[in-house]
């Protein structure tokens, strides 16, 4: 057998990991997909809005429907998906140490390793931020769209990027009121079409505004917000008290790089994509030739870009393991890159495109 029969191990069954595993399996390569959760899909199943992009990016389809499609495809292909399986270590020689169901520990020799571990939402500390009722926007989104429970009735959203604005909209769809969306910068961050639909539902947007504190005894009862100057200092006398029971934080994400550190991947700092992350080349290979990094771990973007990055790595790994000829790999990865490129244009995409270009340059220097 090619490659000693060692499988490609994909860690993380979100959009990036699923797409990588699908491309590998389609090429005939042995692949094992591991995820610590009981259900695959990563954060796709809480995305209930219609995606942007074009037809080949599945535009107009809701995120959870894309998740269902990917799951159906992985089932049809018979991919070895190991759920409730945490990868807790990577040893040299690409030995993957996994713990199943928090009780069974084993190692697996991997031919290639694809890390699709995603990102973690950032916290924001202010007096009262530990009170019950303060949570990340993604937490609220998981509660309302996956578990279908409403954590509160009146919400303050902190952060106006796409995550904050989309979750504000979805909280209203779930039956909550959104008191306001606040943004520390002088301009709103998210897509105008998202802010417009939230604004016409009567939600106030406050730019150059921060949260001073959350008040309450056993949970949030009030939020105090205030205008800030150009140096982000609160302006006395501009305080406003909002009656809310929930404060959602949508203040960015940080790549979950732990396993890439264990695998010895060289880390770089790219603030516009979330901070520290493994350097990678245009096939998503890290500084360790056998380890690929795809999706948010390789720079925080979107589910649509994560899926394309997963495909890139899956195709290249299949080729590297001897399951795909040179021409097919070149053609398919070029097509995938074109689709990625299309998603990294315009006022929002340019910055990410430039950051990704910088990562590629840094990888070459490695």
């Amino acid at each position, binding site marked *: 057998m090619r490659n000693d029969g060692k499988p490609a191990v994909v860690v993380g069954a979100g959009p990036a990991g699923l797409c990588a595993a699908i491309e590998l399996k389609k090429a005939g390569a042995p692949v094992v997909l591991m995820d610590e959760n009981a259900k695959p899909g990563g954060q796709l199943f809480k995305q209930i809005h*219609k995606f942007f992009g*074009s037809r080949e990016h599945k535009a107009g389809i809701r995120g959870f429907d894309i998740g269902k499609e990917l799951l159906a495809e992985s089932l049809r292909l018979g991919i070895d998906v190991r759920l409730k399986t945490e990868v807790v270590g990577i040893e040299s020689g690409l030995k993957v140490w996994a713990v199943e169901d928090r009780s069974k520990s084993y190692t697996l020799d991997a031919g290639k390793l694809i890390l699709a571990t995603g990102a973690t939402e950032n916290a924001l500390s202010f007096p009262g931020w530990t009170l019950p009722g303060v949570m990340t926007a993604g937490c609220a989104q998981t509660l309302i769209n996956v578990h279908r429970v409403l954590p509160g009735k009146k919400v303050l959203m902190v952060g106006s990027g796409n995550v904050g604005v989309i979750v504000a909209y979805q909280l209203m769809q779930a039956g909550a009121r959104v008191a306001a969306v606040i943004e520390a910068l*002088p301009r709103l961050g998210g897509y105008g079409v*998202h802010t417009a*639909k939230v*604004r*016409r539902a009567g939600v106030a947007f406050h730019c150059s505004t921060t949260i001073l504190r959350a008040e309450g005894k056993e949970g949030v009862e009030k939020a105090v917000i205030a205008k800030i100057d150009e140096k982000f200092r609160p302006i006395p006398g501009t305080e406003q008290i909002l009656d809310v029971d929930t404060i959602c934080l949508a203040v960015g994400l940080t790549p979950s790089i732990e396993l890439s550190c264990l695998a010895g991947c060289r880390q770089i700092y790219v603030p516009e994509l979330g901070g520290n992350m493994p350097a990678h080349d245009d096939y998503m290979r890290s500084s360790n030739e056998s380890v690929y990094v795809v999706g948010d771990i390789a720079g925080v973007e979107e589910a649509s870009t994560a899926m394309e990055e997963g495909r890139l790595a899956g195709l290249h790994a299949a080729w590297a393991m001897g399951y795909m000829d040179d021409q097919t790999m070149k053609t398919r990865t070029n097509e995938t890159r074109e689709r990625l490129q299309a998603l990294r244009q315009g006022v*929002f995409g340019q910055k990410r495109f430039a950051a990704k270009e910088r990562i590629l340059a840094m990888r070459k220097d490695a």
Partner: protein
Amino acid sequence: MSNNEALKTTGAPSLEELRAVGQLASEEEMEGRGCLCIECIEEIPCNPCQTSCPQGAITVGFPITNLPVIDRTKCTVCGLCIPACPGLAITIKSVKDDRARVRFPWEYLPYPSVGDTVRMVDRLGRELCDGKIVSIINPERNNKTAVITAEFPRKFVQDAISIARRNIDV
């Protein structure tokens, strides 16, 4: 080029910002059967409006971050693009005598019923006037985005964009 000050501080585009990119329809264009209004003034990578149109009346082209351009000679105001737009940024507006209608996307419960009196809102969510629900459709192909038509006094036609949510405390 405008820096979309209103959109990026209030959340909603101003009439001037829409006019600057040719996206503010005139009342003459709204006469009779009405006209398509797309309020998409930022370059985002998205083109389902183009691919959803059976007449080829909407062009985004390449790159897909171009703003959509409507060919009014081809548009039949069928409204298929309304639920196709992931940004919920498309409406159809029409005027006749002293009345106006807006057909808009809607993804909140409860749905209003035909004949209901509702409150029309502007882009900033401010209530403008009463309106009446004329129709509500939500076939399978809309994929859960209902399309509602409401009628209201003509003088609010440039500002009216949607209706106020009701019975929020479910």
